[in-house]
């Protein structure tokens, strides 16, 4: 297991950082919240050109086939700049589901296009009331002559507004919370006729989250992703993989929020001295630093676990460890960031607000800290 980044990975991280500082200011992130699709198509194409969208895609599908740690260093930098481009939903949710379970034809049609930046993907798995459960699925897939008809409502689909293809979890069998009986389908998002209705939901971090209503949309049998009825297992694998990617992004974001706070502690003068000379603040800053270092180590180790080809249980444990830590740490860093900035940190004008809002959304994406502690305990046998 390698816990030290290779020279190549360090270089990739540096170039990602240069890209984000050069091309994506927080001002740009701020306006993206209000306008259009919530992200920049231009930057998206550039990310494709830099090869980021195909980094972890297997070579047989036209990707670079590199380990997850490569993507980790990129996501960390995107997190540092709070970049809203839908890399995670496209590559680690929709893309990962297709890699794991798409039919050969479906993979051929979408994956290479995804790496080229020409196809956006999303995973529609949450429903009203499902909270963090992957098996709470009431969306129904009814068998009709040679295919399926899908009815139901999916919510907070990350990147769902711009997606060309939605991977949808639907029940083909059993009761609404049964572990078995969930099947995944690749559904074209722009279907005419009775089909797919999408509405942008506004979450507090301003990123694209979409409500998707499936009004009896019809798909063929080749739309099935993975083993029918056993979709929840594949879904779990995909969510674990995306969870550690999100954690990498969170580490970058908390690091940036902390750097901003540290800078303020060194420059803000009260009582004739920089406030960072007060021990009450120094010790709290040191605590935040430790939490960030722990989170970073957990995320690095989780990526090493995935890259080592560990089994499902080890991957889930590593993902839950990292997400529990990152959820708490990111919120703590931003809460303290506001407090240490004082009044200015509460203003809409100041960037700390962007980070605390993102921290709250990221905390609950794929399960909050308490959810992952419960899961960690269950996987550990207690």
């Amino acid at each position, binding site marked *: 297991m390698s816990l030290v980044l290779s020279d190549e990975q360090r270089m990739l991280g540096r170039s990602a950082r240069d890209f984000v500082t050069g091309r994506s200011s927080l001002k740009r992130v701020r306006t993206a919240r209000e306008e259009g699709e919530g992200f920049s198509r231009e930057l998206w194409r550039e990310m494709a050109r830099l090869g980021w969208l195909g980094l972890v895609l297997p070579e047989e599908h036209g990707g670079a086939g590199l380990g997850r740690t490569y993507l980790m260093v990129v996501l960390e930098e995107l997190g540092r700049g709070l970049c809203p481009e839908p890399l995670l939903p496209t590559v680690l949710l929709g893309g990962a589901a297709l890699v794991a379970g798409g039919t050969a034809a479906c993979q051929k049609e979408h994956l290479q296009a995804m790496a080229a930046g020409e196809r956006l993907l999303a995973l529609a798995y949450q429903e009203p009331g499902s909270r963090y459960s992957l098996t709470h699925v009431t969306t129904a897939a009814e068998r009709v002559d040679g295919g399926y008809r899908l009815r139901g409502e999916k919510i907070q689909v990350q990147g769902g507004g711009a997606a060309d293809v939605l991977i949808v979890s639907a029940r083909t069998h059993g009761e609404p919370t049964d572990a078995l009986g969930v099947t995944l389908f690749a559904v074209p998002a722009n279907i005419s006729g009775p089909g797919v209705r999408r509405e942008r939901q506004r979450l507090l971090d301003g990123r694209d989250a979409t409500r998707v209503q499936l009004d009896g949309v019809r798909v063929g049998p080749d739309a099935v992703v993975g083993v029918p009825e056993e979709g929840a297992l594949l879904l779990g694998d995909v969510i674990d993989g995306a969870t550690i990617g999100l954690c990498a992004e969170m580490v970058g974001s908390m690091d940036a929020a902390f750097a901003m706070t540290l800078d303020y502690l060194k420059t803000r003068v009260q009582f004739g001295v920089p406030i960072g*000379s007060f021990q009450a603040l120094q010790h709290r*800053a040191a605590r935040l630093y*430790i939490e960030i270092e722990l989170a970073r*180590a957990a995320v690095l180790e989780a990526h090493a676990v995935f890259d080592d080809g560990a089994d499902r249980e080890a991957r889930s444990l590593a993902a839950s460890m990292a997400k529990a830590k990152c959820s708490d740490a990111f919120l703590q860093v931003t809460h303290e960031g506001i407090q240490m900035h004082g009044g200015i940190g509460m203003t809409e004008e100041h960037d700390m607000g962007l980070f605390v809002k993102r921290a709250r959304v990221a905390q609950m994406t794929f399960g909050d800290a308490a959810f992952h502690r419960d899961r960690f*305990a269950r996987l550990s046998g207690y």
Partner: protein
Amino acid sequence: MSDLDTFREEIHRWLDQNAPPSMRTPYKSFDELCWGGKKARYSEDVLHWRDVMAERGFTAPTWPREYGGAGLSKAEAKVLAEEMARLHLRPPLIGFGFWMIGPLLLQEGSEELKREHLPKIARGEVRWCQGYSEPGAGSDLASLQTRAVRDGDHFIVSGQKVWTSYADLADWMFLLVRTDQSAKKQEGITFLLMDMDSPGVSVRPIRLISGASPFCETFLSDVRVPVRNVVGEIHHGWTIARALLGHERTAIAEMFKEHDDAIGLVDAARHYLGSDIADHTGEGRIADPVARDQIAQLDIDQACFEALLARMQAEARAGHKPGHESSILKLYGTELNQRRRDLHVTIAGPQGLGWSGPGFSEQELKATRSWLRSRGNSIEGGTSEIQLNIIAKRVLGLPGL
């Protein structure tokens, strides 16, 4: 086959042939291991294991051969450690000689001092203790008052040291003394090596809130110490002292990594709070959701801590310069231990209240005292507040007041 593989095979065979069966069993605390020296008693197996390992220099694998080590490269030492772990072998010899004064002498000591002291450490003939803290010099260590006055080839040392772990069992002490009264407080300090059998040295054990302890007070009354026992230069001991504190913090962090699994909070929670499997198989989900969550939180934090430790060690091996990681590890490692001990007693409930007498298992009595003892973890070896100061100033670059 590479040289390293050949080395691995040879080492494995040799270890397997030479380790007594009793040295292949897990140990619960460092007290069961050999600390060396003339004053403590050890079983025949412990001494035999120490001697055969010392014979090959394996008690100090990376030290040069001329100082009693095996002269192994880092890679070879790693192989040795891996093979020892594979055979579940106990360390043959431990102590402050290896963690603190040995590495320091290798770095800073004169050739004469190295030749005199290192082989005795490696063979386990001499056990060391640390004379740093004084009644008036705790966190503000540089304000120490123990005086050393020059008298020809000797210093005459007078004063008092406190919290000297195992002073009653040690043969030698490394200590900080004030040699220049008029200089600024960091500048008149000298680093000395002192024979504990010198006339004028007396030692008194300290009892803690948890009961007996390895800590002692050491009184020094006109003790004669040869000037050649100075490490580094006279009056310039403070930089050396600080370097050593880094070694100490790392050693403390390592200790908390080794021992935590031994507590078994999950089993304790199932025992005292019940589980969803009623047949007492010792398995199942912990019935109390609050305790279960607290254990999970602790386990996750512990796993993160170990990931951080592993990352820092990997970076050190890859040649990245260490910063002030030891402060993070010391601070967080000790707090984890405190949380674990605290939770253990809380889970035990009224059974966690026993001090002595009937009605309590040995484990329960131990848990109670371990909790009390753990309160000292965030004080000894540099308080948590001092570690936070170090991180704030040296890592984060926050200004002084």
